[in-house]
C-alpha cells in the first residue's frame, strides 16, 4: 500500500508557512516528533499504543474544540496545530502542579533523581510552588520482589508499566485499580508483586518515567548522571538481546534494554536484566590451580601452562593426537571458540573438538 503524505501547519502563527509533512495514519504527536517539534509527554511511550492519560501533550488545533492530546489525535491533511500557546502552557503547568500535589515527590529521597521525566517537566515549566492542598495518604512501599521496588507514592498513574506488562511482555500482572484520586497500580487481588503472576522481567521499571518503580539491586550504586553506558549482548539464551550496561567505576550497576534495537526491540527478561552480578562473585577463579596430593594449589600462568603443554605433548607422543579431546564453550565469545579449535587442529593435530551444539 502506498503511503499517503499529509501536510500540517504547526506553530505557523509565528513562523510563516511552516509546513510540516507527515504520513497518513500518524498522530499529531508522531508527525511533530518526526519533524523535530517538541511536545512534552509523560504517559506516551513510542513502543506502546497511545494512551492519552497525562494531558501534557495537549495542543490547540484550529476548528477543534478544547485542547486535544496530540498523542491520540490523528493527524489530518491541512490541520493547523499550535503546540505552545499561552493557554496550553498554563494547563500543562496546572497538570504538573496537580501531579506534584498528589504524591510524595521528594527528589532527595528518590533513586530516579536525574533520570526522571517528571523532574525534567517541572524544571522545564518552572513550577515554583504548588497551589493545591490534598488529602493524600501515603501507601506502603512494596519491596517483596528481590528485583523491583514499587513506591506508589511516586507514581503518576501514566499507565506505562501497565501497558508494558500487558502490551509488550504480555504478562498482565498489573493494572490500574479504583478510580479518580483513589486510583493506584495493583496486582490481581492486590497482592504483593512477589505473590502475583509477575515474572520480574522489569519491563515496567524500564518504562517508568519517575521513581515509582526502581531496581533493588541498583540502590546506592550511583546516580544516573554518573553512569557510562556500554552496549553489549546478553550472556544468556540464544535470542541475543541488546542491552546497555550502566557502569560506574568499572562496575555494572544496572542493565536496561537498547530501545529500537534488533532483535529485542527494547525488551529484556529477568535473567538478562538482573542476572549480571555473578561477575563480581567472590567465588570467581582468580589464579591458575594445579592439583597436588588431592587438593588444588595456586600456580603462576607459566607453571600451569607449561604443565598443560607438557602433559598434552607427552600423551600425544605416546598415544597419538587422537588420544586428546576438547569441548569448547557455547557461552563464550566466537573468538575463543575459534582459538580453541585452531589449537586442537593446528597445535595438537586432532579434530576431536566439539561444543554442546546439539543440546
Amino acid at each position, binding site marked *: 500500500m502506498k503511503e499517503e503524505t499529509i501536510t500540517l501547519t504547526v506553530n505557523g502563527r509565528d513562523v510563516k508557512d511552516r509546513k510540516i509533512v507527515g504520513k497518513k495514519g500518524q498522530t499529531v504527536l508522531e508527525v511533530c516528533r518526526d519533524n523535530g517539534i517538541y511536545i512534552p509527554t509523560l504517559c506516551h511511550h513510542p513502543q506502546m499504543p497511545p494512551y492519552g492519560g497525562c494531558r501534557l501533550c495537549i495542543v490547540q488545533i484550529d476548528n477543534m474544540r478544547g485542547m486535544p492530546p496530540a498523542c491520540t489525535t490523528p493527524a489530518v491533511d491541512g490541520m493547523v496545530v499550535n503546540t505552545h500557546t499561552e493557554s496550553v502552557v498554563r494547563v500543562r503547568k496546572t497538570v504538573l502542579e496537580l501531579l506534584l500535589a498528589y504524591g510524595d515527590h521528594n527528589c532527595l529521597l528518590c533513586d530516579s533523581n536525574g533520570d526522571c521525566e517528571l523532574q525534567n517537566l517541572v524544571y522545564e515549566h518552572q513550577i515554583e510552588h504548588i497551589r493545591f492542598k490534598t488529602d493524600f495518604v501515603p501507601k506502603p512501599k512494596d519491596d517483596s520482589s528481590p*528485583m523491583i521496588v514499587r513506591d506508589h507514592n511516586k507514581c503518576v498513574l501514566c499507565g506505562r508499566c501497565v501497558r508494558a506488562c500487558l502490551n509488550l*511482555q504480555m504478562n498482565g500482572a498489573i493494572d490500574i485499580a479504583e478510580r479518580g484520586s483513589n486510583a493506584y497500580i495493583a496486582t490481581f487481588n492486590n497482592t504483593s508483586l512477589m505473590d502475583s503472576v509477575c515474572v520480574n522481567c522489569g519491563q515496567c521499571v524500564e518504562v517508568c518515567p519517575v521513581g515509582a518503580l526502581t531496581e533493588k539491586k541498583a540502590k546506592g550504586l550511583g546516580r544516573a548522571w554518573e553512569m557510562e553506558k*556500554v552496549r*553489549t*549482548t546478553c*550472556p544468556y*539464551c*540464544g*535470542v*541475543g538481546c541488546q542491552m546497555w*550496561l550502566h557502569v560506574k567505576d*568499572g*562496575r*555494572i550497576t544496572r542493565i536496561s534494554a537498547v530501545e529500537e534495537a*534488533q*532483535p529485542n*526491540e527494547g525488551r529484556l527478561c*529477568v*535473567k538478562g536484566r538482573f542476572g549480571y552480578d*555473578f*561477575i563480581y562473585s567472590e*567465588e570467581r*577463579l*582468580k*589464579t*591458575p*590451580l594445579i*592439583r597436588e596430593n588431592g587438593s588444588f594449589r595456586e600456580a603462576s*600462568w607459566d607453571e600451569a*601452562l607449561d604443565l*598443560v603443554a607438557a*602433559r*598434552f605433548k607427552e600423551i*600425544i607422543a605416546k598415544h597419538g593426537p*587422537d*588420544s*586428546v*579431546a*576438547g*569441548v*569448547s*564453550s*557455547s557461552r*563464550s*565469545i*566466537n*573468538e575463543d571458540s*575459534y582459538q580453541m*579449535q585452531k*589449537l*586442537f587442529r*593446528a597445535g595438537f593435530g586432532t*579434530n*576431536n*573438538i*566439539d*561444543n*554442546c551444539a*546439539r*543440546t
Partner: protein
Amino acid sequence: MTNSFAEFSRAKMILAIGTNMTEAHPVAASFVKNATANGAQLIVVDPRRSGLADFATLHVPIRVGSDIAFLNGVMNVLITENLYDREYVETCCTGFEALRAKVLEYPPERSAEICGIEADTIREVARQLAAVKPAMLAYTLGITEHICGMNNVLSCANLQMLLGNVGLECGGVNPLRGQNNVQGACDMGALPNVFPGYQAVADPKARSKFQSAWNCGSLPDKPGIMMPQMLEGLLNGSIKAFYVFGENLANTEPDIHHVEKCLSSAEFLVCQDIFPTETTRFAHVILPAAAWSENDGTFTNSERRVNRVRTVSEPPGISKPNWWIFKQIAARFGQNWSSDSARELWDSEISQLAPSLAGVRYERLEGDGLQWPVPSETHPGTPLMHKDGKFTCGLGQLIPVDWIPPAEVPDEEYPFVLSTGRRLFHYHTRTQTGRALGLNELLGEETADMSPIDGAALGIQNGEMVRVKSRRGEVTVKANLTDRVPPGLIWMAFHFREGCANWLTNPAFDPVTQTAEYKACAVAVEKLPQA
C-alpha cells in the same frame, strides 16, 4: 533460524513445537504473544500446557517423543486432502514421491494413537496450517533432544517445504538456540567435522587453505569425535587428555553417576572456567578465565546475527581472556600466533577464512550487528534464508522419516515418563544465575512437576517430598502438582545439583548428532515419609 525475530510479531500463523519459549526464550515469546494479540493463530504442540499454550488457538498435547508420528500425520492430511503447496514442491523441492509414500503410512488414526490425541485434531492442525500462508514454525530442544532428534528436525523441515513456507517472510524453520553463542561456537568450527564457516575437514582444498593460513604442518583429515564419544573414550582409555572450556559436564550430561566416572578416568583433565564447578573437581589443572563483561568479542544469536560484546572491567586476580590462554598453549607447541585481540582475530583471521562471514568486520558491528551469510564487505547481511524457495543447496530436499519410540519407555517398575528442560529464573547449572543476587529467591530449589491426578493416585500432596527414581539414579525433591503436566509425565530441570534431572536421564543418543534423549526416560515416583 531461516528467519528473524523481527518477523515473529508480524506472523499470521505460528506452529510452536517442542519449545517452552516463555521460560527459555522469554523475549522471543513476547513477540509470539504479540502476534496472537495482532490476530495471528498459534498452534502449540507440547506434552505440557506450557506458558505459550495459554495464548494458543490450539494446544496439541502429544505424547513425549511422538513428534514424527504427529508431523507425518499432518503431512498425510495435507497430501490426501490436496492442501499442500504443489507448485512450490514441484519447483523448489526434490524427493516428494518418497515423502508421499512414507506419510501415507501415517493416516491420522494411526498417528493419533501414537500421539495420544484425536485423529480429528491432526486433521484440524493440517487444515489450519494450510489455510494461512505463510506459517512460521519454531522449535527448540523438545525436537532435538531425542534419539530421533535429527529426524524430528527433518520432519519439521518437510512440513514447512510441503506447505511452501520456507524462504518466505514470517515463515521458515526456526530453531531457537539455547545458549547465547552456541550458534557462534559452531560457526567457528568447534565441531569435529568442520573448520570455521562449515568447511569440511575431509576436503583437501579446505585443509590446504587453513594449513597455509595457520602456517602449520598438515592438518588432520579424519573428522573427530563428538562429546558423548569423548566421555566414553575417557572410560575406555582411548581418550587420555581432555580439555573442558566453560562447560559443566558433571551436571549437564545425562546420567551424572556415569559422567563423573568418565571424568575421573581422565589421565589429564584441564578445565578453563570462571568459577569452580562440579566438573572442575575432577581437573588436574584449572585455568581462570575472563567472563562476559571482561571481554571484547562477538556472540552470534539464533538468527545468525553477529553482535558485539564489550568490556567494562578487568578480570579478577590474574585470570585472562580465553583466546589469550589458547594462544599461550599454542606457543608452547611451537606456534607463533600473531593476532593479539578478539578484534584482530575476527578481522584478520575469521573473516578471511569463513566465506559466509567474509564481509563482517568489527567496524560494521557497531549497531545491530550483521546476519550471516555476509559474503562481502558491501553485503547488508541475510535476515531471510532460502528466499522465495531458492535453497542455498539448490532444491529443498524432502527426506521421509519414520517414527520410533524413545529408547526407554515406561514399564511396571518405572511407570512414568520423565521429560526435562529449563525454568525461567535459572540458567543451566546456575554457575552464573545462582550467583546473581535475587534469582535464588525467585526459584530456590528443584521440584518434580506432576499432574494432580497422579498426585492423588499416589497420595502425594503439593509440596511434599518425593523420591524420583530411574535405572540410573534417584533424587529427592518436592512434588509440584500442576495441571500443566499431563498424567503419566514427570517434568524436571537441571539447575540444582541436588535434585538435578541428570541423575535420572538416559544417556541414549541420536546416532548422527549424538544428542542425548533428555526429553524422555522412565522413572518411578514414591511418596517419602514426611518430616
